[in-house]
């Protein structure tokens, strides 16, 4: 009984996701405004990043506040490979993903012994060390950063001067991939292991879950996807410096949609991004222009309000199951 319910829910999730993606794909054909398209690209990108963060921190319960490291590594690998060696960004993004996944496992090896706040702070300081090293690495542009040279619209080099559409479709694809990977992992051996590790690592270990390996797996998948997002972001803004791709605020911004939408849930990160990113961008451009911080007050107030009012995330509001339970 339970099993068919679960299988039905998973099938329904997949159908809903397909429909939403199809609708999203048509929207920019009607909405031509560049400003709005820009917000849509950012929304999809942050949704994808948060979805990837959610794999390690939501499902596996290892709260990382240092994912900016992988985002920055993806951005830097892609950009450096292209500007120094002429490697196309498509390979750069994959390369950045692989490098980040390997580094995530290397760092996970000592860090996954840590618990709770000690782990979270370790992730913060590791990302900060990365930031400071890039700040002082002359070959990689140091504090000045790197500008990606534009040579006309090209799919090969994945750069477009005017149109936002190609970026939009890439961001949509990335969000779909991150969502689908999460969907697929939810019902895999790894997915069950991760939830067991999150709830009670000792009990999981005693039942034969290899806790350490499952954390490493989650870290690798999560870092890979975030780095691809970082590579994309570098192409999208065509200029990177250490602060703008590896700053601490990126780690928090990555976590925020998942937390507000519903941490450790399939739909939470995307839902959180759809609400949060447009609000951020709109407040920034309509009331932030004065430079007087009103946008920060609205944004911060929203974070406090949602996290206090719905600690389990907004996603529960849309779940039919919950409505039944209430009735």
């Amino acid at each position: 009984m339970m099993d068919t319910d679960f299988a039905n829910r998973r099938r329904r999730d997949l159908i809903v996701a397909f429909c939403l993606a199809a609708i999203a794909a048509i929207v920019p054909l009607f909405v031509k405004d560049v400003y709005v398209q820009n917000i849509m690209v950012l929304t999809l990108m942050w949704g994808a990043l948060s979805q990837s963060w959610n794999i390690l921190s939501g499902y596996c319960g290892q709260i990382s506040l240092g994912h900016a490291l992988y985002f920055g590594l993806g951005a830097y690998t892609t950009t450096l490979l292209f500007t120094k060696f002429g490697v196309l960004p498509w390979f750069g993004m994959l390369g950045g993903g692989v490098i980040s996944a390997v580094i995530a496992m290397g760092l996970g090896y000592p860090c996954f012994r840590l618990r709770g706040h000690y782990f979270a702070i370790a992730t913060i300081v590791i990302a900060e060390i990365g930031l400071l090293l890039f700040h002082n690495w002359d070959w990689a542009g140091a504090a000045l950063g790197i500008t990606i040279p534009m040579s006309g619209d090209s799919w090969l080099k994945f750069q477009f001067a005017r149109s936002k559409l190609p970026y939009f479709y890439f961001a949509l694809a990335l969000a779909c991939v991150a969502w689908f990977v999460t969907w697929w992992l939810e019902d895999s051996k790894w997915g069950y292991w991760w939830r067991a590790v999150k709830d009670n690592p000792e009990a999981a270990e005693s039942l034969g879950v290899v806790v350490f390996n499952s954390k490493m797996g989650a870290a690798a998948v999560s870092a890979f996807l975030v780095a691809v997002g970082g590579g994309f972001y570098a192409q999208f803004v065509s200029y990177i410096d250490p602060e703008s791709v590896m700053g601490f605020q990126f780690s928090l911004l990555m976590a925020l949609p998942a937390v507000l939408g519903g941490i450790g849930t399939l739909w939470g990160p995307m839902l959180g991004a759809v609400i949060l990113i447009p609000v951020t961008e709109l407040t920034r451009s309509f009331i932030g222009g004065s430079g007087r911080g009103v946008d920060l007050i609205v944004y911060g107030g929203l974070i406090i309000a949602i996290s206090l009012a719905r600690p389990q995330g907004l996603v529960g509001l849309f779940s039919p199951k919950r409505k039944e339970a209430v009735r």
Partner: protein
Amino acid sequence: MTAETIIQSLASGLLMGLLYGLIAVGLALIFGLMDVVNFAHGEFLMIAMYITFFLFAFFAIDPLLSAPLVAAALFVFGALVYLLIVRFAVRAKANAGMVQIFSTFGLAIVMRGVAQFFFTPDYRSVTHSWLGGKTVSIGGIFLPQPQLIGAAVAIAAFGGLYFFIHRTDFGRALEATREDAGAVALVGIDKNRVFALGWGLGAALVGLAGAIMSIFFYIYPDVGASFALIAYVTVALGGFGSVFGAFAGGIIVGLVEASTALLLPPSLKSVGIYAVYLLVVFVRPRGLFGSI
């Protein structure tokens, strides 16, 4: 590099470290009391620096004199933050950890916005204070007077805190509540009141640090961010919840920062602090003095 420069920088590192300890101890106190990490701690420091600045600019009260006033103002502020926000955050039945992180993080953003709104993003500084820019020479080592006083204040504050926790009724209530919040309710101690006072006390300590810091540091809306991370590392290094750990952690952080600045380019001086934190927790996952 002569022996003198080494002693010189270690001495200033020690002074700065004691101040780091004072900045961090409020965080450690609150964590020890109720397992909450205040992600707006840096912004508490920022507000304290602004209050000091305006008391100086409008009423010409020197930071040394206004420090107790600033601490008192921060006490009220800290207690209010507990009563208005944190009290509800700790009640969350789901995701308690994330709710605490993000409700205090949201508060930090709001505070930065409010500071920008009222005070503009301009850098400000307390000019011509009694101690600003003055140094004292001890056996050929030059020490800046503000940092020297800051270190003395930090030591006094730690001494006072020790006395307070171990010798007063409220201190005992604080200790009892951190041991077992459920049991203290049975003997008639109002948990919420103790928590509110704990937040007030934690904020007052960072307020004291902010008042001293404003003598030799620029004041701007984002100033807290640069010290917040050092404060978290200090607290975690010493072991979460341990007041003595924050004191020791602060000294270690100050000394490590000063020695790193001797060996590496100045922009990398924080790398040493972070590396030492990682080394310590890899060997002792609960920090130096943290309890299990």
